[in-house]
């Protein structure tokens, strides 16, 4: 039973993460609205973060916190580094999204539309 669960998780977590990334990419590449593109980019970030944190998981591991009493009863811990990285990645993702949204506001102000095909003054 547990084995099958892990089997599903084996593929499931990575699969989900990759799927999220792909959905985000699809949104960013196909959707015509700037806002949807920004959302797509955010979704990519989420997928990446999911993937990142999943790398660090160890079966049966606990959170990497030496809470009181832990040292008396040590258990295997999950990898803390990806978690730290994800923390950084999330914040950076936030920063980028904020800038992206600001740009969308600027573009809307300038062009009066959010349709990406109409925002093509710079080309060739």
């Amino acid at each position: 039973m547990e084995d099958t669960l892990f089997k599903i998780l084996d593929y499931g977590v990575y699969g989900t993460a990759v799927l999220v990334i792909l959905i985000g990419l699809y949104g960013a590449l196909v959707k015509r609205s700037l806002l949807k593109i920004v959302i797509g980019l955010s979704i990519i970030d989420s997928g990446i973060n999911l993937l990142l944190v999943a790398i660090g998981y160890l079966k049966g591991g606990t959170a990497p916190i030496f809470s009181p009493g832990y040292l008396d009863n040590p258990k295997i811990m999950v990898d803390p580094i990806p978690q730290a990285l994800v923390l950084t990645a999330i914040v950076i993702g936030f920063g980028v999204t904020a800038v992206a949204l600001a740009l969308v506001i600027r573009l809307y102000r300038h062009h009066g539309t959010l349709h990406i095909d109409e925002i093509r003054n710079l080309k060739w």
Partner: protein
Amino acid sequence: MKKFVVILLLAVMGYYISITFFDIGFGDSHLVEGVVPVKDAYLNETVNSLNVANTVTSIVVNFRGFDTLGEVTVLFLAVTALGGILYKKRHQAGERSVLFSASKVVTSGSKLLFPAIVLLGAYVFIHGHLSPGGGFQGGVIIATGFLLMLLAYENFTVGHNTLSVIESLAGITFAGVGIWGLIYGGSFLENFLPVGTLNDLFSGGVIPIIYIAVGFKVAAELTGVIYTVLHEKG
């Protein structure tokens, strides 16, 4: 047409990424043989020489504190960039672009909740080295408090300069601590304070100081972001 091409492309890419990660495997050690991972040293050093309970915090603030400094900078830059991008010549401060009337229930509730939220945030970042959470998490919680207030009250204002000063001071603290470490400890962000005992509030040397600074900074910056966007005339 374009959609199908994109889907095809993404499918190919997804396939390759997926099989790579499936091959790497989930939930067990996927390192190549003979490699000693850095995390073992981290876990070891965290509890033995830093006396910090939360390994993630020790990594974020100490081992990889440089990343975090960069990360804080990214946030700071995002706020600066936001101001720069959305700058308009005749900027009417205090005039909100989105006006709505919140109901009495919301306003009263917000007023009640706001101190609690700020308190929770402060708790989270102060105890960042002991329990899950930290400066970022705490800062975000505080910022949600301000978001709540901004949503509830049309005329709720946050001093722009105040935010800026807090932000700067927090940033200076972080960078200053780092340089202090360089001067007294020999390397940037060196933990030059005594580390105390494990699971004490005052333990981990400079880690809590930095995390508190980060907490203030994140709170101020996120509030600043919300505030700036909210005062943007479309």
